[in-house]
């Protein structure tokens, strides 16, 4: 089987290197960039699938304004230096709109190139606040909440709902985790009723976190806010619970992943995490997930709904603007509400999606259950 797949990939490689003249000349090309191989592939591949599903439907219905849509899929393995190569590659292949990139660092590196070429970029997962807030990238939009918004939700929840007085903020030193933790730290410090008792980064991949856990215990924190991904979170939670610590654990959408519950098992119970709102109530979201199951035989992965939404708004803008003109498309993106799995939304001045797409979850009986916000 390995060799069959190898041969398939080789054939695929040849197709890409020597494009056959069979391709229709006048297609709309959408670039998809993100991590599709290596350890972060599970964050990037669902976006490819979501876009494929949307585009397949559109092409079956005759394309956008009579033009078929073609996808240019490129792997940046979440590395900034490779992301810039990918960006130039996509542009030279004729992509005028891009869905991606997946990681904030890679997105930040690639955006100036897209901006100079007048390419519209919609990311389903790059949460770094600067991307939209500092106004450098008018061509950038995202269907996910920015870090500052997420941190605000987490801190507010921890202070108001959990009534924590002493808060420890822990992060994984990474781009995403530390970015979020920095905001959480600022918000906790601004709030005079609570005290920040610990602010630390843990080393991802370390063999053991018991020293940090002892430190949390000693700090006397009522709640731990963790910025980062699930592998470290589950190690920390497991060791906390093994040491009989009942400290509340509140984290982000890097932890709101079913793998976290499976890995941490019973110790995951009672952990809080923010994440994109549950779309199972939305008919569009339900049918998208159903389509994924039929097409690929598995449950969709991380950021699938965000990517699905991104593909919908992007194709809508392409249709309404009557082409790939950046200004016309920007007009549509900023004003027109589009039905997505998250409900109808458009983009605000900065390029962030309007309306709420964020909610808080709690692990109950091995499942993430949304908490009703007052």
């Amino acid at each position, binding site marked *: *089987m*390995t*060799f069959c797949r*190898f041969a398939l*990939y*080789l054939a*695929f*490689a040849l197709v*890409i*290197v020597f494009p056959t003249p069979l391709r229709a000349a006048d297609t709309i090309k959408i670039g998809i960039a993100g991590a*599709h*191989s*290596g350890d972060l*592939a599970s964050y990037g591949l669902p976006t490819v699938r979501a876009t494929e599903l949307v585009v397949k439907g559109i092409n079956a219905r005759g394309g956008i304004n009579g033009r078929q849509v073609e996808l240019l899929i*490129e*792997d940046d393995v979440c*590395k*900034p*230096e490779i992301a*810039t*190569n990918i960006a*130039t*590659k996509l*542009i*030279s*292949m004729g992509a005028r709109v891009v869905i991606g990139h997946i990681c*904030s*660092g890679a997105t*930040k*590196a690639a*955006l*100036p*190139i897209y901006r*100079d*070429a007048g390419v519209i970029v919609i990311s389903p997962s790059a949460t*770094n606040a*600067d991307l939209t807030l500092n106004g*450098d990238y008018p061509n950038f939009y995202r269907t996910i909440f920015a870090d500052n918004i997420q941190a605000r939700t987490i801190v507010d929840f921890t202070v108001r709902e959990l009534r924590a007085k002493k808060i420890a903020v822990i992060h994984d*030193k*990474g*781009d995403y985790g*530390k*970015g979020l933790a*920095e905001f959480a730290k600022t918000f906790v410090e601004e709030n005079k009723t609570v005290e920040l008792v610990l602010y630390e*980064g843990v080393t991802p991949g370390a063999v053991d976190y018991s020293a940090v856990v002892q430190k949390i215990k000693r700090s006397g924190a009522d709640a731990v806010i963790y910025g980062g991904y699930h592998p470290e979170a589950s190690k920390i939670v497991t060791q906390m619970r093994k040491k009989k610590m009942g400290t509340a654990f509140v984290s982000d959408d890097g932890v709101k992943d079913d*793998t976290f519950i*499976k890995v941490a098992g019973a110790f995951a119970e009672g952990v809080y995490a923010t994440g994109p709102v549950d779309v199972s109530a939305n008919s569009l979201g339900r049918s998208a997930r159903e389509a994924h199951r039929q097409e690929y035989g598995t449950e969709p992965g991380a950021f699938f709904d965000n990517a699905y939404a991104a593909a919908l708004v992007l194709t809508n803008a392409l249709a309404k603007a009557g082409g790939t003109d950046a200004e016309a498309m920007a007009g549509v993106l900023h004003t027109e509400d589009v039905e997505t799995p998250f409900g109808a939304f458009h983009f605000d001045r900065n390029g962030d999606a309007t309306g709420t797409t964020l909610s808080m979850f709690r692990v109950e009986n091995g499942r993430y259950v949304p908490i009703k916000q007052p």
Partner: protein
Amino acid sequence: MARRTMRLNGRDIGSALLTALWFAFLALPFLAVKINPVEQTVTWRWHAIIYVALAAFLLSLGGSLYRQYRKAHLARKSQNDLSSEQSLFGRLWATRKIRLSLLAALTAAAITFPLLFSTYQTNIMITALIYVMLGLGLNIVVGVAGLLDLGYVAFYAVGAYSYALLNLHFGIGFWSALPISALLAAFFGVILGFPVLRLRGDYLAIVTLGFGEIIRLILENWNAFSKGPSGIANIPRPGFFGLDLTLEGAIIYLYYLMLGLVLFTVFVVNRLQNSRIGRAWFALREDEIACQAMGIDKTRTKLTAFALGATWAGMAGVIFAAKTTFVNPASFTFLESAIILCIVVLGGMGSIIGVVLAALLLILLPEYLRPLADYRMLAFGAVLVAMMVFRPQGLVSRVRRTYVPAGKNIPDE
């Protein structure tokens, strides 16, 4: 060619069968079984084992044939005179006319490259050229002076971050940042050099590795200084006499700039190797004690090697920052050091043309293998092992007159 027909006897087939069985056994827990501990299920894939066994069987047979061929080849070679020692390439290279025309063709190809190929290809080529420069720089430390440095990426980071930070805080442009960063990197090279003066071989290796990690960790943790893991964005590309270049223009400009810098590097490194200090480095590599006995200042020689090696990394770092327009600590991991080291060793320690070839190979290969997705890195690892097994002296081994003293003190002897 071979007069004796090569054939496989029963022993070869027997050992091939054993090899096949052995590899089937090795693959058992990984390829035959796909575990899913979450659902507590196991998928069996026996056919994978059969493929592995078959591949091992055929490769083993191929290996036997290769060994027979080698034997016949070596026997024939020992009959002929020793001048055939030199490779075909080496012999061609020695002919002045061919060397000149080859160089001319190469220069023409290098100059017309961005005009013939797309921006993307040019962009990739810039990356490859950056690695050529890094390889040449590390070559001074590892290849020429024989100091195993596993933390070379630290100087690359110093260069990239000094441009990024100088530009951010003081608005210093590319051209002023280039020499400043080079000097800073050289300074860091000396800082690293001092504590490791007494260390040898692999002790040196781990300390340099640690140094590389320390630099990266500081960049990651010290937010106030380096903006931490979220990195520094919007680093300007080099300006062209105040003109505003389009993206395509900027990339082509950067390409020529990089080409010029690489040529400059080649020139300098080549001249250095034949200089007094270069001779001292070679002597240091061969035997430290004899070197001291000859009156070479060991401290100064080692420190210059570190400082000069670091200088190139610093300059390469500035180009990297200018090309990517974004830096964050994730670009400067140990794997990067390892790849640069691979370039030096694969190229043939101390050989300039070898380093250039190896850098192009190791950087362009994974890039063009991109459609293979996950198989790319698998192939990369396998190629490294295979290259070392079949050409342990590197692509281009430096031809130097050496003699082997009887009691040579080399650990792997």
